[in-house]
């Protein structure tokens, strides 16, 4: 019988050979069964953006994992000099943690259709993000006033480096948040679906950056 020679799932048999009469059960989407029969111009595919965001986050997490293991390896060295955690970093940790909660509320109210309320909460998130960055910069000044500079020794380098790289990534989140705010402010309701996805992606990214900072903070605080 001429059915599927290479391995696929068992298919219904049909007299006369050939494959199954219908296309297979799967084909599109991460779970493979969402083929909707595309007509007209290529539409926005939320799944594509969602997958891509996860993939981007995987890459970012991988880089921080590598840097963290570098940190852990160097911390076992003999010349390792622990640095006292600047108080500003404790404050900034609180700020970014709070921003995640506010963002979550904003997303919820967006879903409930209360867009002006959501807009306000998103603005708060943005402000918290900016003040987080400001706190990090002040933390740097605090380190410098202790006489701990970027090139002093590995632990101090990691202090600056982790905060710097994380800050750059958070700026990406701030840009995304700004774009979302702009969309909502300008009432780009031509495509509310797109606003919804943007909000989802931005919050996913933001929460990951939040979690990453907590991880880095604990690493710098405890593993010294």
């Amino acid at each position: 019988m001429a059915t599927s020679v290479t391995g696929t799932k068992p298919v219904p048999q049909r007299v006369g050979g050939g494959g199954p009469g219908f296309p297979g059960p799967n084909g599109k989407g991460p779970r493979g069964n969402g083929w909707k029969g595309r007509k007209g111009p290529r539409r926005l595919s939320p799944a594509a953006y969602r997958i891509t965001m996860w993939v981007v986050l995987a890459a970012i997490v991988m880089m921080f994992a590598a840097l963290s293991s570098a940190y852990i390896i160097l911390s076992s060295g003999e010349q390792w000099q622990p640095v006292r955690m600047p108080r500003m970093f404790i404050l900034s940790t609180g700020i970014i943690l709070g921003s995640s909660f506010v963002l979550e509320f904003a997303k919820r109210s967006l879903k409930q259709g209360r867009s002006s309320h959501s807009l306000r909460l998103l603005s708060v998130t943005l402000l918290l993000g900016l003040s987080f960055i400001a706190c990090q910069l002040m933390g740097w000044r605090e380190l410098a006033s202790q006489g701990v500079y970027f090139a002093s020794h590995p632990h101090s380098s990691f202090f600056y480096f982790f905060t710097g790289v994380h800050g750059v990534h958070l700026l990406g989140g701030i840009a995304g948040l700004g774009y979302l705010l702009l969309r909502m402010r300008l009432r780009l309701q031509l495509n509310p679906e797109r606003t919804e996805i943007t909000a989802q992606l931005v919050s996913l990214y933001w929460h990951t950056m939040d979690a990453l900072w907590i991880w880095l903070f604990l690493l710098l605080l405890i593993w010294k």
Partner: protein
Amino acid sequence: MSGEIHEGVHRHPAPTSFIRKYIFSLDHKVIGIQYILLALAAVLVGMIMSLLMRMNLSWPGTNWPILGTLFPGGAPNGVMNPEFYLSLVTMHGTIMVFFVLTTAPQGGFGNYFLPIQIGAEDMAFPVLNMLSFWVTFVGFIVILAAIFFSGAESTVGPIGGWTGYAPLSALGAIAGPGQGMGMNLWIISIAIFCVGSLLGALNFITTLLNMRTRGMSLMRMPLTCWAWFTTAVLALLSFPVLLGGGILLLLDRLAGTSFFIPSGLYVSGVLTGTNPNFPLHTGGSPILWQHLFWFFGHPEVYIAILPGMGATSHVLATFARKPVFGYRAMVFAIFAIGLLGFFVWGHHMFISGMSPYSAVAFSILTLAIGVPSAVKTFNWIGTLWGGRIRFTSAMLFAIGFVSLFVAGGISGLILGQSSLDLPVHDTYIVTGHFHLVMGVASIFGMFAATYFWFPKMFGRMLDERMGQIHFWITFIGVYAIFIPFHVMGLVGMPRRFSSFDEYEFLNSLDPLVLLASVAAIVTIAVQFLFYFNLVWSIFKGKRASDNPWEATTLEWTTATPPPHDNFAGILPTVYRGPYEFAVPGAPNDFVMQTEAEAEVASGNGHERHRH
């Protein structure tokens, strides 16, 4: 992304301006060809560098006037400096690994054929795809700049090998020739390359997961698609590590940090901290760079070869007129190789001062890769077994791939064991091993892909006679180059030495060194035949039909060359697996993936024919 809407048929209009069509194109096919052209240019540079190295090894001290003219610093009076040679080693490795073995298989053929083989009109994010190429291109320009910016330092780039081991690479100009601007540019180029590859990888992953056409289940994808997908996942997880490491290395050089520079280092007669050119460094670990580098570096090996494996499976099935033996096992073997590839980086570092216990763990994991590799090899042989083989050039290169993969892989079993590796590490046996299995095998996979897909890409067949000559000389040539390397390594010839004149015990190897060099010259010469074939066939080749090889997958269902949106607006529907050759009772010996019914009078009941 705009287009007119017709009833159910939707076509992307192709861009008409030259710049949008050929330079900053969003079409994955054009981008794929751009990647292939980049690789063809890069491989030329890398090949010429290897030629110069062989010339220096076989005829050291000879006066090559042209070298003296081109590089008055590196080859005064036409005689190559040792530093010049070492920078050749570095640049040859870097250009080949990054800009050839990573770009052509994945960015080139993957970009061109992954969307077509899964029945998509384009990649998920065409703009990202374009950026990915142009970022990579900038990386290539920067690495070329490293050649010329080091000119004053009597080298053609940094010295440090493609691995750029610290602390040499972390110290800056004080460490010697080539360690100044050249090394900076080298690191920057690699970092740019990482970004470009990441952009490409996320596009590949999203496209494959989200853009498959109706009926194209995962297990109906051609093995090429599985290979490109796994490669993209490997790139996604390994390039960020290299990027992070590269930034740390650059900071060590430019910002005075000490991530990779240990305390109390004494370089070029200067103690760290006693000279403004060499500020105080303390507390870094050179081994850390090796860990970061090889955590990327080993998956990179599979990034280079997996697409070749995919292409080989594809070509073998098509020209053996048989289904791929054990399709499912092949898919899992690809995954297993990719997964294990992340846990074996330590086998590059056995002599770097590693705990013997970790070395054993790394050895066991390394040898475990032999299992999926053997699964693949036996399945390739199983595919060939009893087939009605058509010995086209593509098929020859695919069989050549299997041969080289086995021949190069065998020595991997030796090098993977720490006890056996210790005496031969950093000898020519390592060079021979990775050139056969990673370098030449991957390239053979790409040759097979080129001969196989050229008709689809350009609408003309490549010349068969030139292809056969190209194959046989290359095939014999690469063995004649790299098998002697194994012997040299066993005798104890170290890698990365510009000359062996002072080592009497190596004198007996002179004939082998000469053989390798002559074989290299012949092999390189015949590659120009390949280049000629490419150009000649684009204009003068025999016209190709839509499906000249009588193959089954989706790229052969569309026009030759494919229209801008791949399927002229109507996405195909897939009804079956990718390799349905010699289906009993079918009228042809191949059944396309899009054929719903093979009009056959059933011969033998409802018995399912499965392997």
